[in-house]
Every structure is written in structure tokens, then in C-alpha cells.
């Protein structure tokens, strides 16, 4: 009888412990998500400023460019927690949804690194967690510019033969 009671107690304590661990895991998961969600939100807001909303945004510069003209722009860092945000161009067939099938520039976290096969993964990342602007006449060339953490990145935007080109200075 005593043995059974001890066994029952053990089962009860184990169950309590399992429930406690599950609750703690959920709580940690929730807090981590909340924290990184906030970081990502800030990064997206900064990207939006750089691409669209500020007076010296990439969109405004492209709109103001005349044929044969070139302008330089200094891009500030986007994220500061290990993330590696880049400026990408998408001119091939597959593009993030917000590009609506047109050529576009996006700022998002670099998830492929040097892996050329990770291109689809990169499109998905920019689609889910990125900001894009449509530039229909963007030159069909690869843009992948790292927005470095410790110092500003300077880029050059030019218009030649009605095509927009973006390069790192």
C-alpha cells in the first residue's frame, strides 16, 4: 500500500513538473518572440524610411533623377542584433509579392549568405519580413549591398537609357 502511494506521489509530481516546464517553455517562447518581433518591427520602420518615407529616400531620389544623372546616398544601418540587412534587387521572374510582378528593390535580412541556391529562401524572407519599392525600369543586374552595422554605406543611383542602376560606392 505504501509503495503504491509513493508511486502515485511520484506520478503526480512528474505531471506537475511537466506542466510547469511546458508553461515555462511557452512563456520563454512568447517573450523571445515579443522581443525579436519588436526588433524586426524597428528594422522594418527604418527600412521604410530609407526606401520610401524620408525626404532623401531611394524612391524620391529615383523619381527625381533625370536621364544621364547620378546621385549618391548614404544609408544608415538597419539592425544591430546580429541580423544582416541588405539592399536587394529582384529582376528575375520570381519576386516578393509586394513587387506585383515588376522589378523592385527590397531591404530585408540576408538569409542566404554566399549560398547561391538560397535565392528562393531570400525571396521568401523579403516577402515576409522586408520592405520593397517597385522600380519598373530597374536595370537587370544583381544588387546585394550590405547595410553595415558600424558605419554608413554609400550607394550611387543613376539613370542611363531610362534604366535605373544601383551600385555601392
Amino acid at each position: 500500500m505504501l509503495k503504491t502511494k509513493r508511486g502515485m506521489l511520484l506520478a503526480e509530481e512528474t505531471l506537475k513538473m511537466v506542466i510547469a516546464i511546458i508553461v515555462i517553455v511557452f512563456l520563454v517562447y512568447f517573450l523571445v518572440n515579443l522581443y525579436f518581433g519588436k526588433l524586426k518591427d524597428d528594422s522594418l520602420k527604418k527600412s521604410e524610411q530609407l526606401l520610401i518615407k524620408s525626404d532623401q529616400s531611394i524612391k524620391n531620389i529615383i523619381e527625381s533623377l533625370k536621364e544621364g544623372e547620378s546621385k549618391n546616398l548614404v544609408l544608415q544601418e538597419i539592425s544591430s542584433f546580429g541580423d544582416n540587412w541588405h539592399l536587394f534587387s529582384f529582376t528575375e521572374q520570381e519576386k516578393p509579392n509586394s513587387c506585383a510582378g515588376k522589378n523592385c528593390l527590397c531591404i530585408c535580412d540576408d538569409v542566404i549568405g554566399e549560398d547561391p541556391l538560397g535565392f528562393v529562401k531570400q525571396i521568401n524572407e523579403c516577402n515576409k519580413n522586408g520592405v520593397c519599392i517597385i522600380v519598373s525600369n530597374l536595370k537587370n543586374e544583381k544588387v546585394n549591398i550590405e547595410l553595415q552595422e558600424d558605419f554608413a554605406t554609400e550607394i550611387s543611383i543613376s539613370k542611363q537609357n531610362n534604366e535605373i542602376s544601383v551600385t555601392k560606392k
Partner: protein
Amino acid sequence: MKNKHKRGELSTQQIVLMIILIASFLVILFFLFRLGIGEKSEEQLCHNSVLQKASIFSEAPLQCYRNYICITKDGSCEELIKPEKIKVKSLDEVYEALANEMTDCWWMFGEGKVDYAGEDLTKNNYCSICSQIYFDDSLENLEGVENKKISKDELYDYLAENNYSKEQTYSQYLFGTSDISGLKTSILEYENNLENIGNFGNIEIGKQYFNVMGITSSVGWVEWSGVGAGLGATIIGAVWAISGPPGWIAGSLILGGGAIIGGTAGTGAGELIEPEIGAIIIEGKSGNQFMAPTLQEAESDKFKALNCEEILTYT
């Protein structure tokens, strides 16, 4: 037997009960996700943020997100990443899907009864892209589709002939009337419509379209036309035969009108826009004028001619 248990000690029966409860909860969660309740909550969240903005003029942005939709016959959708797929077998089903998208958009943004633009804003047109719709290539095999085009006139006829609810048709809900042919005649006969534009144009299969609606801040469509004209839009006021009460049509936007538009940023050289009735303007009960939901090709010159100052929906 009960006496033998310590206080607070869990019996096997209780443990089994708890496991059954957790399992049932998981099953219910699974079905909730399968039913797509999340999408409905997003629409509700957007609707609530619109109402909140209007009631207390809060500075908080609207919580409205663009929906990515693919209308397809064979289930393939190459152009969009993980869109909401709507499988159709006939043109009527395409029209039904579009009608539902347009009415959802109109509902989310307050049915013309809510001023979410505010007074402090200057002469601006605030647009909301409720959904981005890709018309998959497979639709060209549908009966009634010719030259890879779907007629928007037939879509508006569908809106006039089919019921949104027991009491009203889709077009009554959206425009306050079911007399689409009367509206087209009225627009056609309007004295400023020099090029006799009286149709809504076509949707091209294989392209992406925005389901977009708008609100003017403190200005009406006359001022709106002044802004739009600069971009090549000819906007006329096709006043309804009898000036109706709020909730009725106030005019229409004719986009194109044969104007050659200059190259704007991000576009190529100027090109000819085939003219069409781009959108219907509603005299809202809030006192604002609203551009009723309309379908325009994504980032096209016709869309740009709507001259949206700001897009209120997130991508």
C-alpha cells in the same frame, strides 16, 4: 476509497480527463486554423482600427494589410508566393470572387459612413489596397474568355444582378443602385465626356490587379480631378440623373481619355492609356467622398492616375 487519497493528489481519472481536455483543445484549434478564422480576424482588426480612428481621431495607423489572392482554374499560381488560392470553374465564379473581395474591402473601410482621413489633412486622396489579385494563365481556358481578357463591364453587370444579402445586390451595397446601364448612359451623355467613354475596360489574364478604394480628406472629387489630371487622368463628374442622398453615386473617374502621359519615376516613356471608367465616386454618409472599390492593374499608369497620396494598407 476517496479517503485513501491525499488532499490535492491527482487520480488517474483526473489525469485522463485532463489529457482528453488538452487533446480536444488541440483538435478545436486545428479546425479553427483550417476554417481560416485568422483571415476573418484580420478583416475585423482592420475594420475596428478604421472605426477607432474615426471616433477618437487617434494618430495610430490603421491595422490593415493587403491580401494576396490568386484566381486560378488549375490550382497553379506562379507569380505569387503562398497566396490565398481561389479555384474557379466558370467566369461567374471569377466574378463572384471579385465581388466578394470588393464588398469585403468596402465593409472593412466603413461602407462610406466613416471619416478615417480626418480634417487636418490637406487635399489628398488616401487609398487602401485591400487585395492584390493575380489572374492565373489557366483562366484563359474558361468559357467566355476571349483574347486573354475578362470584361469588367460583365463584372459590374454581375454586381447589379446578384444578391450580396437578402435585401440588396452587390452594386446596391457598393454604389446605392443596381442600375449600372443607367449609370453608364449617364456617364456617356455627360457633356464633359468628349470621347464618349462608357465602359469599364478589361482585366488582362496573367497580370496582377489591385482591389483599391479611397477616401478624400476634406476635398471633393472636383479637386481630386485637378490633381489627377496632371497625371493624365481625365476625370469627369457624371452626375446621377437625380442627385441622390448620401450613400449614392456622386460621379465617376474616367482614366485615360486618350491623354499621352509623360514618363513618371519608375515608368518608361509616355504611353497611351486606353480610356475607361476607372472608378465610381460615392457621396459618403460621413460627408467625405469615397472612391468605391475598383480593380486596376498593379502599378500601371491607370493606377497611378488615381493619384493616391498615400496607401493606408500595409503590404
